[in-house]
């Protein structure tokens, strides 16, 4: 992303430099591509080639029992289509995205606005404390939450007990296991979004709020008319990152539930892992990977199209 911005800027400089500088400009463009080449080589070798190869592999039956690849065309995809578990996995992913993304974003924004207030010396402590879960490695955090969600001696039931809520089996209950993972993931991720929002909030000029104050706008009006629109690009960025990471969810599931009970927490990446490395069905794993990549591309394209219309970029 930053690389392409660099190209645009250089071109801008070259065209503004007037006539006579044209040759320098074209030479410069060649230079830019030269400088970009190493990054491109890395992308091709480690990203696009594996992606293409995985799409190629998805056309073969290749597993423990057929160690020699057999070409089967689209059979792996058809098998997936007919497999109820595949649809359950997609449903779980969707449920996770719907549960985790809005909550994490709203919480991140809300807390960013709070810790952006003049809190005096306590501000640093608040910021550090709220950001803390983000710094813990996911696997360690997941191990911790296995105990927090323990039905008998876990903290979570202990606290909800004070609120008069019934004790739940959380990770061991087919209805509550996925919500439990969502709760844990919100706790783990909101700090990251809060940090991004905080940075964006500090980029909003104070004069705007002063002017609004003079006009007699209340806090609510100031939020909707100034903060929210000016955070548009940040929200878009956060939203895209959140979608991607919601489809990448794996560590929590691996550590906390292994996809159980009865596959109620089985998600796409875990399902790929199961097929490729546990059942050693590489053809199926490759087919799933291809589905996963296409799904993500389509989703992100949709987001950019839909959101791009009403996100306001400064300087446009």
């Amino acid at each position: 992303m930053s690389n392409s911005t660099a190209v645009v800027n250089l071109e801008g400089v070259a065209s503004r430099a007037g006539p006579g500088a044209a040759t320098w400009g074209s030479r410069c463009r060649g230079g830019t591509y030269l400088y970009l080449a190493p990054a491109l080589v890395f992308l091709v070798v480690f990203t696009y080639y594996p992606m293409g190869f995985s799409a190629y592999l998805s056309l073969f039956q290749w597993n423990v029992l057929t160690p020699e690849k057999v070409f089967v065309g689209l059979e792996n995809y058809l098998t997936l289509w007919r497999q109820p578990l595949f649809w359950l996995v997609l449903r779980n992913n969707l449920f996770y995205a719907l549960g985790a993304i809005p909550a994490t974003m709203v919480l991140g924004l809300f807390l960013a606005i709070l810790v952006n207030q003049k809190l005096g010396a306590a501000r640093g402590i608040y910021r550090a404390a709220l950001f803390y879960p983000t710094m813990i490695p996911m696997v360690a955090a997941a191990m911790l939450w296995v105990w927090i969600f323990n039905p008998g001696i876990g903290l979570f039931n202990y606290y909800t007990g004070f609120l008069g809520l019934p004790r739940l089996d959380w990770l061991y209950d087919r209805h509550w296991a996925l919500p439990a993972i969502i709760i844990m993931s919100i706790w783990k991720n909101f700090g990251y979004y809060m940090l991004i929002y905080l940075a964006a909030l500090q980029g909003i000029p104070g004069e705007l709020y002063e002017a609004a104050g003079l006009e007699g706008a209340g806090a609510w009006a100031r939020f909707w008319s100034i903060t929210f629109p000016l955070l548009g690009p940040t929200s878009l960025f956060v939203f895209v990152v959140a979608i991607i990471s919601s489809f990448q969810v794996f560590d929590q599931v691996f550590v906390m539930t292994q996809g159980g009970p009865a596959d109620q927490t089985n998600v796409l990446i875990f399902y790929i892992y199961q097929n490729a490395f546990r059942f050693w069905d590489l053809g199926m794993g490759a087919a799933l990977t291809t589905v996963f990549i296409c799904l993500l591309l389509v989703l992100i394209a949709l987001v950019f199209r839909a959101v791009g219309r009403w996100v306001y970029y400064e300087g446009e």
Partner: protein
Amino acid sequence: MHLRSAMWLTVAVLLAFAATLPLAAAAEAPGKLIRLTFYYPVGVAGPLAKVIGEMADRFNKEHPGIEVVPVYSGDYDPTLQKVQTAVMAGNPPDVFIVEISELPTLLAMNAVIPLDDYVRKAEGGKYWEDFFPAFRENSTLRGKIWWIPFQRSTPVLYWNKDLFKKAGLDREKPPQSWAELKDMAKKLTVREGGDTKQWGVTISGGWNDWLFEAFVRQNGSWLISPDGTRVNFASKEAVEALDFWVDLMHRDKVGPPHSTWGSTPPDFVAQQTAMLYHSTGILTFLRNSAKFDFGVAFMPKSKSFGAEVGGGNLAIARKIPKERQDAAWKFIEWMTSGENAAHWSVASGYVATRQSSYNVPAMKEFLAKDARYLVARDQLKYASGKMMAPNFQKIREILKKQLDDAVDGKVPPQEALASVQTQVEIVIKR
């Protein structure tokens, strides 16, 4: 000038490098050291990695030409994945332990060598017969011996004597039959309002497919034929066994329907459950952690007592030179000697795989202090081999999914097991 000195420098460096090569080779030639990579899992709670490390050190000291490098590779599933990946990449670990049901998969991958020639010569030909018959079962396929029993177990029933007393039961009498189990579990379950404060019995999740096979055995049937070609998941006996689970976990709610293999031993220690079905391999962990008196019993019977063995065996990779395979065999033979099998059993709580291990003085002394370690061995009389088939990982997932659905009351036992039957038939025929 500069260029020339740079050239000379390069030549000098190259020469110096070349000079070390023959020296290095010469240093290695006499009494060449064979370094073996040994992947092993730890399938149960406890610091067993330390015990393996200590045993490998002892072996290395006693065998100057060989150095075994133990590599801890997670629990059973990750270990299998690492071995499979390494085999596929053409760089397998020389010797490794994986879970016993994976033998057909290893054979399909052409990953291991038969050990018959080694076994026949070992200990004057008396080596193999000394292993408990039930432990030998998962070693043989297509008429050959492929691997040697090492960390072996059966499931057993643990019961909390203090909680038995509190519930008005005889603290020394664990349930003998399914009916007694259900009855006692009801008395041992403590509820407050809608919450269960204490479960009667926990049939541990994670490897509940293994425990389920034991229940089917007790009810007089089997799930997969020993050669891995026929499946029998939907028998009347299996349906009855699953229905009994549904009774405990869904209708009477005296046991948690879901749990994990790692979480249930601490639950038992925290007195969250009064009885626990788990591997005998956790006995040492429980002994060290529980602040109350507990007992170890045979799993209760239905038509008869019944269990199947579990755990991991030692195998030698196929795609390594013969001299490494010979060295690997020396290591396996040493690890599974009567004395070392006894040592491993005392340190871990696993059943010693050799009958002669129980005559080793250190073992006798240890068992005199705590007879609970004998229960699993005595249960071997009623035990048979564990089910095994190609692509067992997938079969296991299929079975576990349907077990989960059944004990949640989502699918009737009959239907759940019929579904397992159809799906597993497809996996095996593929």
